[in-house]
């Protein structure tokens, strides 16, 4: 996806005063930024504003980008830090729910869904999105970078400033948590039928 020479020329044009060319950067990396920001910023109304703030920062800091890392890693780092600042302002914890206080089955029972309501969850992707949103924000972000952006543990470690090993263990724990919750939800559906 990232052609170094092409990117260098593009950035040189932007630095040279061709601001409109920055639109190419936005088009190319908006999905990456959204994957980071949407996982961390839970308030829907604020998500797009934070994404805009990220690109404004990218534009303002473009002079300091020296191609020491991939542009995607650099942009994702800015997105991550901007989202972190947002979370700090809103006092949202990063890892608040690592060990669930109740088992998935208990939680589902507590939700007291009717069979009709539960039937809505049959679509795996919708169910998955809902469960990802329930994960601690940092787990969701790391999973998105790994599975949606195909980033390595090392790249994720650079972005989040978390050691490689911790990134790996976060990914394993997040996936196990998701698998257990999804299975529990499917079992609940079977019970409701």
């Amino acid at each position, binding site marked *: 996806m990232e052609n170094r020479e092409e990117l260098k020329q593009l950035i040189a044009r932007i630095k040279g005063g061709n*601001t409109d060319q920055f639109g190419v950067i936005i088009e190319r990396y908006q999905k990456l930024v959204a994957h980071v920001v949407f996982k961390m910023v839970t308030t829907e109304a604020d998500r797009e*504003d934070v994404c805009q703030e990220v690109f*404004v920062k990218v534009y303002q800091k473009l002079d300091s980008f020296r191609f020491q890392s991939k542009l995607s890693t650099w942009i994702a780092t800015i997105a991550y830090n901007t989202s972190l600042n947002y979370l700090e302002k809103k006092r949202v914890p990063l890892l608040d729910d690592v060990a669930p206080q109740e088992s998935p089955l208990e939680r589902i029972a507590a939700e007291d869904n009717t069979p009709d309501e539960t039937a809505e969850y049959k679509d795996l992707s919708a169910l998955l999105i809902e469960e990802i949103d329930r994960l601690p924000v940092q787990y969701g972000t790391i999973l998105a970078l790994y599975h949606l952006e195909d980033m390595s543990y090392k790249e994720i470690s650079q972005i989040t400033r978390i050691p490689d090993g911790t990134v790996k263990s976060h990914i394993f724990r997040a*996936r196990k948590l998701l698998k257990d919750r999804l299975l529990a939800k499917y079992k609940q559906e079977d019970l409701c039928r």
Partner: protein
Amino acid sequence: MSIKHLSDKRIQEYLDNKLRPESLSPDERKHLDSCQLCQGTMADYSHLYSGLAQEERQLLSPHFTARTMAIIRALEKPATAISRSSLFIAFVAVVTICGVVNYFINIKDILYAVEAFSLERLLSGSAFVSTMEQWSSRLGGNLNILVFAGLLLILVGLIDKLLVRQKANRAYFMSV
């Protein structure tokens, strides 16, 4: 079949390595081939992996790029706006001061004032106070008007800068 099942971590590592046989030990491979429970767990994870890789949802609005570009373009404008307003203020200040000076004092008085503040006089320490007094008396007490005009200009300048900054901030925080 050995009793020890593969842990979730080992199954995930196997899937992360694209099911490469070398990522499992021979014993683990043998176990996986014959254990339905581990195969089931692996199938669950396999489904989860494909779900995670395809997780698509409504992300950004279709006009996101255009709106962000509008903000970025607006960010560049304040510098021009401030310099233009500064030029305008400087021009108005010069014209007003010239007008006030022209109205209240003649050119001889200005030269007199320059002489009063000249380095030579200041260094010699002679006649500075008396020259100032003479100059002030010639103005007939109108020095206060000059001070008032100067302060008024500074105030106008500050208000103008404040307004320009507010406009710039609005352009930054609001999507156009």
